[in-house]
C-alpha cells in the first residue's frame, strides 16, 4: 500500500474559497491561491479544487485559478465541478490539473467515464460521489453539489463507475460534510472494500482522531479535509504527526 494521502479540498465559488455545511450555506473564506500554496508548502500530498456552482451554470470556471496555482505547486491537482465532456476535461487538464473529478455529468451519461478514461487514462478520471444515507447501510447518490437526488444506490453506482474506467473514487458524505462530526466510517469502509481502486474519504473531519478513524476503520487510501484547515483549527503537520503516532504510513516531508 502507498502512504496514506492528506488532501486539502478547496471549494470555489467565483474567485473565492468558500465553505458550507452539508454542501449548502456558503461562506467566503479567502483567496484560493494563498491557501493552496500554503497547503503545498506545508506538506499536502495532493490538492482538490471544486467549482461548487459549476453544475448550476453548466461550466467549470476554475481553469484560470488552476493555471495560476500550477505555476508554483508541484503535487497532483484534481479539479471537479461542471465537467461534462472530453473537451471540458481536456481544457482543465491543459490548465495544469492532473485529474478531473466528475459527478453530475457521469450520472447523467455514464459513458462519459469511459470516454475520459480512454482519452486521458483511468488515473485522470476520478469518480466523485456525493452520498446521502437513506437507511441502515444504504446510501443514495446525489448530484449538483448535493442538491438533486439521482435515485442511484451508491453500491451499484460505484461498481459501475469502476467498470467503466474510473481510476479513483472521491467519496463525500453529504450528511457529515461541514459538520466536523467525523467521517461516515461505514460508508467509507463499504466502498473501500468494494472496489479495487483508491478511495478518498471526504466530509466531516473535526479532529485528528476522525482522520485516523477514516484510515483505520474506514480503510480509506486518502483523506480530504477542508474546514479544519481553512479555519486553522488543525494544520497539516499536526495531522501527519498524529498519523505517525497511530502507526500509519504517511509521507515524510522534507523540512
Amino acid at each position, binding site marked *: 500500500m502507498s502512504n496514506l494521502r492528506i488532501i486539502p479540498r478547496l471549494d470555489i465559488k467565483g474567485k473565492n474559497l468558500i465553505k458550507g455545511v452539508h454542501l449548502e450555506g456558503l461562506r467566503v473564506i479567502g483567496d484560493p491561491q494563498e491557501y493552496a500554496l500554503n497547503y503545498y508548502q506545508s506538506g499536502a500530498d495532493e490538492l482538490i479544487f471544486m467549482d461548487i456552482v459549476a453544475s448550476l451554470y453548466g461550466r467549470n470556471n476554475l481553469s484560470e485559478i488552476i493555471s495560476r496555482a*500550477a505555476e508554483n505547486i508541484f503535487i497532483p491537482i484534481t479539479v471537479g465541478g461542471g465537467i461534462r465532456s472530453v473537451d471540458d476535461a481536456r481544457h482543465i487538464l491543459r490548465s495544469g490539473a492532473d485529474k478531473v473529478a466528475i459527478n453530475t455529468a457521469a450520472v447523467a451519461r455514464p459513458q462519459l467515464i469511459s470516454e475520459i478514461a480512454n482519452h486521458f487514462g483511468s*488515473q*485522470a478520471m476520478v469518480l466523485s460521489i456525493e452520498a446521502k444515507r437513506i437507511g441502515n447501510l444504504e446510501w443514495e447518490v446525489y448530484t449538483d453539489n448535493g442538491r438533486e437526488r439521482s435515485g442511484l444506490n451508491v453500491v451499484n453506482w460505484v461498481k459501475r463507475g469502476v467498470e467503466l474506467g474510473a481510476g479513483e473514487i472521491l467519496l463525500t458524505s453529504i450528511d457529515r460534510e461541514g459538520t466536523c462530526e467525523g467521517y461516515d466510517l461505514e460508508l467509507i469502509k463499504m466502498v473501500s472494500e468494494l472496489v479495487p481502486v483508491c478511495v478518498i474519504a471526504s466530509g466531516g473531519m473535526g479532529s485528528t482522531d476522525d482522520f485516523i478513524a477514516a484510515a483505520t476503520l474506514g480503510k480509506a487510501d486518502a483523506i480530504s479535509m477542508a474546514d479544519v484547515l481553512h479555519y486553522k483549527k488543525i494544520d497539516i503537520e499536526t495531522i501527519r504527526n498524529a498519523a505517525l503516532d497511530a502507526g500509519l504510513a504517511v509521507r515524510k516531508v522534507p523540512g
Partner: protein
Amino acid sequence: MKTKITLLDYGMCNLLNVARAFQHCGAEVVIAEDPATAYNAEKLVVPGVGAFPDSMRMLQLLGFDDVIRQFVITERPFLGICVGMQVLFESSYEFGHTAGLAILPGTVESIPCKTVNGENQRVPHMGWNPLLFPENNLLSWEGTLLQGLKNQESSMYFVHSYAAIPSDVQTRLADVFYGGHNLCAAVQKNNIMATQFHPERSGKLGLDIIRQFITM
C-alpha cells in the same frame, strides 16, 4: 545563461506541468514538435501519461522513435518520465503485446493485483512511496540522477498500472516497495535516465531531481 531543456511533445497532457517544473528550477524550456528539434536538444526529456500502445503509436507516427534511439547514443542527457520510461524497454504487455524502443533490455508488465501475502491490492498504484536502493548492490546515489536523496526516506508520487522489469539489473537505480513486491522506480545507464514516478508532481524532492538533471 540558462540551461536549455527540450521536452518532446507527442500529444501528452502533462507537458505543461513538466515544463513548469523545469522553468521553476531555472531551465529554459524548448518544446520539440518535430524530430529535428528533438535530435538537436542539449538535454531531452520524454514525459508520458496514459497507455503504452498509444504512446508508441504517437512516437512512431511523428517520427520520434528513431530520433530517441539516435539521441541517446550521442551521450547527451536523456530523461524519460512514467510512460516515457516504459517505452525505452523492448516490449509491454499493456493491452496485448507492443514493441517498445528497445534502448534498454527488459519488458513492461502489469503490477500484481495481489500482495505477496495474497491480499488484494490497489491497482493502479497511486500515491507516495519512498525510493529504495535496488537489490543490485547499489549503495549510493552519488553522481546519479538521484544524487542527494536518502534511501527509504525520499517519497515520490507514483501513478501506474504497469512497471518495467529491466533484464540488466545494473541499470536499476531505485526500487519502490508495493504490496511486498519490489517494482522498478528508476533506471540509469550512463546518460540514459528514467523515472516511473513523476518528479514534477513530487514536491520539493521531485524538484531536486529535476535540478540534478539540469546540471548533468
